[in-house]
């Protein structure tokens, strides 16, 4: 049907080719390695692209041009930055807990890579179609706070410690309403699996057919994911005007780059989750009744839909960062416990009612 060869066919071809040459177990091992390499390449490429895009967007929002020197329109700037960080020495403070200090960036990075596993990029393109996908993502992404606390504690720096503690309080509390926002959609689609949630949106995205509860959940999820990412206006953990750089004050070189990479990976993953759960993943935009229009939308490949939605949410997060001032720590917690959490709980009740009655389209 499709004019082009879909990604699914490519992966199937690779799979059958490997199985025809090797023993199935060896082929499975090779596939795991290939998938891992693909994920790393994707994440690094996306991080480089995101850094460049963010700097350009920030520049235009502030009446500047952004990076312009390295490459055409500064397009090589992010790569040049990575090269610089690669060449720098990784300093370790004298009185730090050296093992924890060196381990922390790896913990943070590994956790953020692990969250990519159940994401469905296009039809059938998914590393592991685990039946508790949404639960897995929320569970694993909350592990990154351990890496941040390790970094803050082992640096033997009061600024780092304060930053890590702030980050701990922030991530732990914001996970509640983030999880409740996801539960709304999980209840409506009746499944925790990512591919199941995407399939449930074949006739319309949840944000459109799910009425007000899903819209509220979507807004809550955007806010909480911004907070979980430690990005402005919730970037208290690394508030540069208060704590210089927060938990990664003492890190340099590639160790710092790993924190940076994991921050961008987390940002990317949470945007992908929001795009999958609320905006229909790789499902094209359909309007019931308009067959011609729907048919035209089908011709746009799923992967374009998916990354289009992801970038829309990424753009929102970038837009927040370059507009808003930062909250204070007590106001941050007040926002969660006094506003987001009660609203989310009531919202879940409403959503449960709607799901029970089957009032969505």
């Amino acid at each position, binding site marked *: 049907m499709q004019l082009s060869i879909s990604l699914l066919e490519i992966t199937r071809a690779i799979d059958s080719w490997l199985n025809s040459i090797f023993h199935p177990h060896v082929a499975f091992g090779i596939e795991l390695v290939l998938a891992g390499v693909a994920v790393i390449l994707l994440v690094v490429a996306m991080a480089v692209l995101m850094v460049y895009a963010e700097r350009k967007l*920030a520049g235009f*929002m*502030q*009446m*500047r041009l952004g990076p312009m020197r390295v490459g055409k329109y500064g397009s090589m700037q992010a790569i040049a930055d990575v090269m610089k960080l690669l060449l720098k020495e990784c300093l370790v403070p004298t009185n730090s807990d050296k093992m924890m200090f060196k381990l922390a960036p790896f913990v943070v990075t590994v956790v953020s890579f692990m969250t990519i596993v159940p994401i469905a990029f296009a039809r059938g393109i998914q590393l592991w179609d685990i039946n508790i996908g949404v639960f897995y993502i929320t569970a694993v992404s909350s592990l990154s706070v351990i890496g941040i606390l390790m970094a803050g504690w082992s640096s033997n720096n*009061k*600024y780092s410690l*304060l930053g890590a503690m*702030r980050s701990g309080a922030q991530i732990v509390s914001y996970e509640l309403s983030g999880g409740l926002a996801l539960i709304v959609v999980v209840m409506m689609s009746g499944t925790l699996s990512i591919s199941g949630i995407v399939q449930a949106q074949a006739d319309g995205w949840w944000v459109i057919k799910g009425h007000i509860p899903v819209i509220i959940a979507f807004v809550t999820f955007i806010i909480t994911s911004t907070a979980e990412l430690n990005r*402005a*206006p919730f*970037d*208290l953990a690394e*508030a*540069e*005007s*208060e*704590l*210089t750089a927060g938990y990664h004050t003492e890190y340099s070189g590639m160790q710092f780059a790993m924190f940076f990479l994991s921050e961008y990976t987390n940002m990317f993953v949470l945007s992908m989750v929001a795009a999958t759960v609320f905006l229909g993943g790789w499902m094209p935009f359909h309007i019931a009744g308009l067959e011609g229009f729907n048919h035209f939308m089908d011709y746009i490949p799923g992967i374009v839909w998916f990354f289009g939605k992801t970038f829309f949410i990424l753009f929102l997060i970038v837009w927040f960062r*370059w*507009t*808003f*001032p*930062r*909250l*204070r*720590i*007590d*106001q941050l917690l007040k926002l969660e416990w006094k506003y987001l959490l009660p609203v989310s709980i009531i919202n879940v009740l409403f959503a449960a009612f709607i799901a029970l009655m089957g009032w969505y389209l």
Partner: protein
Amino acid sequence: METKDIKRDEFVINVGPQHPSTHGVLRLELWLDGEDIIDSKPHLGYIHRGIEKMSEALGYKQFIYLTSRMDYLSAHMNNQACSLAIEKGLQVEAPPRAQVIRVLMAELSRLASHQLWWGALGLDLGAVSPFFYAFREREMILEIFEETCGSRLTMNYITPGGVVNDLHPDFVKKVKKLIEQLKGNLHEYDQLLTGNAILQARTRGVGKLTAEDAISLGCTGPVARASGVKCDVRKLHPYDGYDKVDFEEVLNDKGDNFARYWLRIAEMEQSIRIIEQLIDNIPEGSYREKLKGVVKLPAGEYYQRVETARGELGVYIVSDGKKEPYRVRFRTPNFSNLNALRPMLKGAKIGDMVSMMATLDLIIPDIDR
């Protein structure tokens, strides 16, 4: 405070001398209990250059250029204060044209200073974009300065007896364009920060300074006026024809961070009002009273105060009749405004420290001199 023992769960952090939110080399010792500040102690002297002592070795005309380096955002007002003090000693008065030029320049630099403050406040509170929006009009002001005075930051333009150069032919045109653009863009300030819920939460009710505290700590300028203390030198002791222009001394009695924020925005409007009144009425005539090559003040003491962008600057000159001053002393506004920080900081959070420093608008070289 030096003898105080650190209790369990308390710890001390040093904010500065190299810290992004102190805008210079101020070092603050903060005693913390978690996020709460128990006590604080500022340490000065990291940028002490001995401007007062250096002035004793230079002639009366020469030392003025050093004052541009104290509060570098109010360089014109600092020069004006010294020039007025020396003019007092010589018993000359600047010609009317020079007086109007001085007032115009002073108000322009007040605008530029408040714009930088607004941008830096956004930066301190974590919003980067306001900095660039504020610099748009500030850049125009600096270009006006550059055209007339020859430099952008440390102008050394106001001199005893008048001003160094006449106004640039384009001055009036450019200032009018600036005022027009600034009026059109002031609403952006409200749109981006003033009305912002986060900024309101960060500033309202935070960093209260009572009028009694403001007076007893010697605070002046917007900091004291935000606590309801009338202290505008332009109104109380008019100089250079400030009594002839019509403007309001903006007051607020809340005394919190937002009052100081609001007051500076309102002061910008007043500065625009003063400039609008004067820009079409610059008198013709000489711009400078020619003084002797080597100025000698008669023996005695001379004191002059002006209102800089941050408060009251006093210049005290003791002369023994020689060509160098015997003693020069500056009463700088930032030094006394810094005193307000300690009572404000007690019981506040670390995040509040940043917003308080931002609304006090401290310039560290002015504290240390």
